[in-house]
């Protein structure tokens, strides 16, 4: 069964049509890249999927459940997590504390008021595994504001992963990273288990071709191509949009 499907999703902002009739479906375990020039509506699409924005028309289905108008908190609890272009971390807290808060939320242990935080073994174990997977274990006592930009992006992703989501939306995960940070990030993403489905907005084509099973191309709010990487790479319409070649 398809994990995520969008049907005829449109979005207008006061007369400006940002998304037009977007229809796509994502299989469980798939790595789907969403690419397109700036202003194509990619982040808006993510906002609609994760619940920050409602679509003007069309619907969003998670498995067979209509999730079109649910709030981001609801979506998170249903297993849809996302990262943001702009980091939204707990800067004064350490790396470990950042992840721990997310794990604690997921395990619903926030209400305990008498037992100290380090006595919760299940949270300890999960926090450790998330930090190790994200390559942040060695930086766990460092306040988040002292991390390098690349490490902070890793932390963003770790926090999203702490909730054991079904679907992870990565919004430009390698933006602003150096070459080494990018390849480290790509390796981390590639190593994520197939029990997790990924939707990735990216501009860096090397990253896209390294990770994606399928690519959806957006331009001016419309899907202009959707398919295997090689097919998309050779699609004339896509080439026109990116390289300015005549169709």
């Amino acid at each position: 069964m398809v994990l995520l499907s969008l049907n005829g999703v449109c979005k207008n902002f006061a007369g400006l049509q940002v998304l037009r009739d977007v229809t796509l479906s994502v299989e469980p375990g798939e790595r789907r890249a969403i690419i397109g020039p700036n202003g194509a509506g990619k982040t808006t699409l993510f906002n609609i999927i994760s619940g920050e924005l409602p679509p003007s028309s069309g619907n969003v289905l998670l498995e067979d459940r209509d999730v079109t108008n649910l709030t981001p908190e609801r979506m998170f609890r249903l297993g849809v997590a996302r990262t943001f272009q702009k980091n939204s971390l707990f800067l004064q807290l350490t790396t470990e504390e950042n992840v721990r808060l997310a794990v604690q939320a997921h395990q619903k242990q926030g209400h305990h008021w008498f037992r100290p935080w380090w006595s919760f073994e299940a949270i300890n174990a999960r926090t450790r595994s998330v930090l190790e997977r994200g390559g942040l274990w060695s930086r766990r006592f460092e306040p988040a504001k002292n991390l390098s930009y690349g490490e902070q992006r890793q932390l963003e992703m770790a926090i999203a992963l702490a909730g054991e989501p079904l679907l992870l939306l990565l919004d430009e995960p390698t933006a602003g990273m150096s070459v080494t940070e990018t390849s480290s990030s790509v390796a981390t993403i590639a190593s994520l288990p197939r029990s997790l489905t990924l939707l990735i907005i990216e501009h860096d084509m090397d990253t896209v071709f390294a990770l994606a099973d399928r690519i959806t191309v957006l331009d001016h709010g419309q899907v202009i191509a959707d398919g295997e990487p090689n097919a998309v790479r050779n699609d004339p319409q896509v080439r026109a949009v990116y390289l300015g070649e005549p169709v």
Partner: protein
Amino acid sequence: MADKVIAIAPPTDTAVAQRRPTLSQRWLTGIHPAWLLLIPVLAIVPWATADVFPFGVSLATSILVLSIFTMSLDLLLGYAGLASFGHAAFLGLGAYSAAILSAHLGISNLGIALLAAIAMASAGSLVLGLLALRTSGVYFLMLTLAFAQMLSAVAEKWTPVTGGTNGLPGVKSPELFIPGLTVTRGIPYYWLTLAITILCFFLMHRLINAPFGRTLIGIHQNESRMRAIGYNTRLYKLGAFWVAGVFASVAGVLYAFFNQFISPDDIGFTTSGAAVLMVLLGGEASLIGPIVGTTVYVVLQNVLSSLFTGRWQLILGALFVIFVLFVRGGFVGIWRRMRRGPA
């Protein structure tokens, strides 16, 4: 607040390792056992010096009572990030509960007074919380302030019950457990207060180090992210409000029994503001900070009012101003910066 690291130092690696915590870590949650020695010191010194320094017991008692109040405010201000300027309302609810029971109904049982105070504080914090927590920042501040003034006005106007503007005298000494076991003024009351303060400190310390406290800190840091990862932040903030209100009302009960009198002036705008200053003075987001701040403030107030009778509020106000302009993070902030070494 920008350069303060709120995180407590994790107890070495027990954070994510599988080592059994030591006994002191389990029971004292990170407080060094040496601090326990302070307790007998605090108990004995005022008693021993009572002849030489008779004012000491009274001073120490008021410092302790107000410390409970300011620590509870710090839960809101420093940890949860809720700048409440009306916390004296809860002090008032507790104080007036105890005072009315004792002066009007002849019930001076401490347990009953505390129960009544907690009930009133629960109701009050629920009402205020449900209303004020829909807003943030300035609106929140003003709502809490207005709430406190409103209660103060009720105390002023409802003369038959609250004694009106002149206050309610005639509060007797409190009784413990059985009638007749009265805790008299002076040293016995001081010891009672010390015991309750230590208990409150312990409970609040536990709270802060438990998941609930960590969640509050997270909400303070980045509320929208907390919501995004699945926390019902409004509920947590309401919880913090309730806890802070309850502890403040406990302080109120102790305050009423200590002064054997309560008046609307005690629970107005000035008290709320002074409490905020005490927290900031000592350093917010710590429990020691409010205690230090309260001590400094109370001592200063006593010194100034005896040196400059009538003018001391002017100097106090000036101190507020100077302090805000030049000192950041309070005494605890200074201490933390010193510990971290030159940045």
